């Protein structure tokens, strides 16, 4: 799993690739929380995420909570159908704004 973050205007863009599971989720959370120190909106680009375990889901939920506490917003981009199904089954899907492309995601944060 790899994360690259960059600041774009008032927002943070985080591009994640690989598998988010019990081993990698804590690292992903730490990096995303660090990135959040400098922006209000968070765009997580998951187009290259091949697998999201329940630990990854919990990580996203905690992340969402942190962002919401700061009155920020989270947009997930390129969530695969499989991950989308898992998020839907566990009741997570309603919390996040989902976008198909990075442009659409940034527009949602605007």
């Amino acid at each position, binding site marked *: 799993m790899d994360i690259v973050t960059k600041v774009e205007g008032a927002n943070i863009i985080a591009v994640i690739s690989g598998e988010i599971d*019990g081993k990698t989720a804590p690292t992903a959370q730490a990096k995303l929380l660090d990135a959040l120190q400098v922006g209000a909106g968070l765009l997580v680009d998951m187009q290259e995420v091949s697998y999201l375990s329940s*630990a990854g889901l919990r990580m996203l939920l905690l992340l969402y909570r942190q962002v919401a506490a700061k009155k920020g917003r989270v947009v997930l981009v390129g969530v695969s159908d499989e991950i989308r199904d898992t998020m839907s*089954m*566990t009741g997570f899907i309603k919390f996040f704004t989902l976008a198909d492309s990075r442009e659409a995601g940034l527009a949602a944060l605007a």
Partner: protein
Amino acid sequence: MGQLKFTFSDTITGYVTRFNRTERSFGLKTSDGREYTMFITPMTYARISQNLDEGYIDATGRLGELLEEENLVYAYCIFYPNGDDYRIEVKSMIFPGDQIGNYRHEEPDWWIKQIRAIADSYLKWQFGYPENQIDYRDYRTFLHLAGGKKGDYLQETDTISRLVYGFASAYLLTGEDRFLEGAELGTEYLREHVRFYDNDEGLIYWYHGLQVSGEREQKLLTSEFGDDYDSLPMYEQIYALAGPTQTYRITGDPQIMFDIEKTIDLFEKYYKDDQQGGYFSHIDPITLDPRSPTLDKGNNRAKKNWNSVGDHAPAYLINLWLATGEEKYADFLEYTFDTIEAHFPDYANSPFVQERFFEDWSHDKSWGWQQDNAVVGHNLKIAWNLMRMNSLRPKEKYVAFARKIAELMPAVGSDRQRGGWYDVVSRTIAPGEEYHRFTWHDRKAWWQQEQAILAYMIMRGVLKDDEYLRHAREAASFYNAHFLDRDDGAVYFNVLANGLPYLMGNERFKGSHSMSGYHSTELCYLAAVYTNMLIKKTPMNFYFKPKPGGFKDNILRVAPDILPPGSIRLTAVEIDGKPYQNFDAEKLAVNLPAAQHALRVKVTITPV
């Protein structure tokens, strides 16, 4: 310092030793045998303890009759310095019964009326019932003293589940449909809104709660409290099962059983310490690891405590065993009690158990507010539940431990001047001191009274020791005299040492993180069972409503609690209002007929 030279007021509680009609004075001997002489004034008034939903019962005109030897009385007095002594003048009195030696809380329907009143108050406060339908979207954890909502939007999983437990218990005792509706809708709401079904692991855990606003809801995965911040504390997962499990006893709903089993899988897989025994108190919310460094934030890394080991039994596990009779749950219960018995006693150092541990069971005396303090009610809760367990799998060590607690606690945890049981005290006495110090205050919390009442009731019921009956009566009388809110409904959170309600801050609420209609209803349910089944030997009715195809093999188990084998029998069954004969009186089991609808089952259980 010598005598305090000022007037003050306080309560003295004790048994009448004499009454001097000429002098208008009487003697009162406290629970620990100290005697006072007190005077009645022209303005002294008295009442008989009354239940919720009952009117005032004046006893002012009956003082001569009630101030008889051996009668228990709560006397609120003014102390006037008088030479080297005090003259104690009584302003008001409460008698726990309307005749000598009579205790109203031992009336067969006392606790049943009380649970009905409490459950109705919460139905009204939470949902506006009966004017409005029961809708858990309206539920709020925080309720004001009179039941009003505070304007916040928090729905904690635990508190919903605890209230569901209260409604289910009210149904078991009354058979009134609104309570089962409250229990089932609450259980469904928990499943739909705060249950996390983990596909990867095939197990279930429960969110801390929700923030709701209209149609929007925000799930809170982790605890929002300082003690447990950013973790999944075990007690929240345990209490998430309390309400659904009590509801399962009534309905046998297979969906509830699915959730219970998958949550127990979580306990066994992630909270249990297979190497050194017991259950961890917290796990990391992402990795589910009890040893995660992230738990250091709350000083909860690799810790075990009373709640994580001891709360399984009373919160859901005993009720699960009652409903199923499954050996695996009896084994689980035995494991928790053996763990408690092995690690909690610390009598070389303190009359109180040790409640917090590191993973190797060495004592943790540095955690948060607890440090080296004792929660009085946890000690009593151990005694109460050991006696239940002893009727399932008897062990001498269970009885010996329960007796030890019951014999030590009155001197160090109760108020033998005014009555009632204290909250949190230092576990040891410092050199030169005579009393265990009160950690925060000398107030008395409702739930700690419950533990004392149930502990001493069941100990009297099982062991037949009259000293335990005396403590049970004193504890139950104090609670019923002082904790019932006859103006606004349900019970007060705290009273001052003298028994007057304390109505400040969080402690003036009827709904909060700590109070939601659980302990007060648990007390009603089990005090009714112990009083009628074990002490007064009075038959009782219980109500069930099994779903078609719910209980395994169509067997409905109706034992009201784990009581000594052979002490009660199932003597009559009605199904949908008609007598029904296919039941096992000794095993307390009904062989249900095949049905396409939920059956209304009323059973009569009779003490032997």
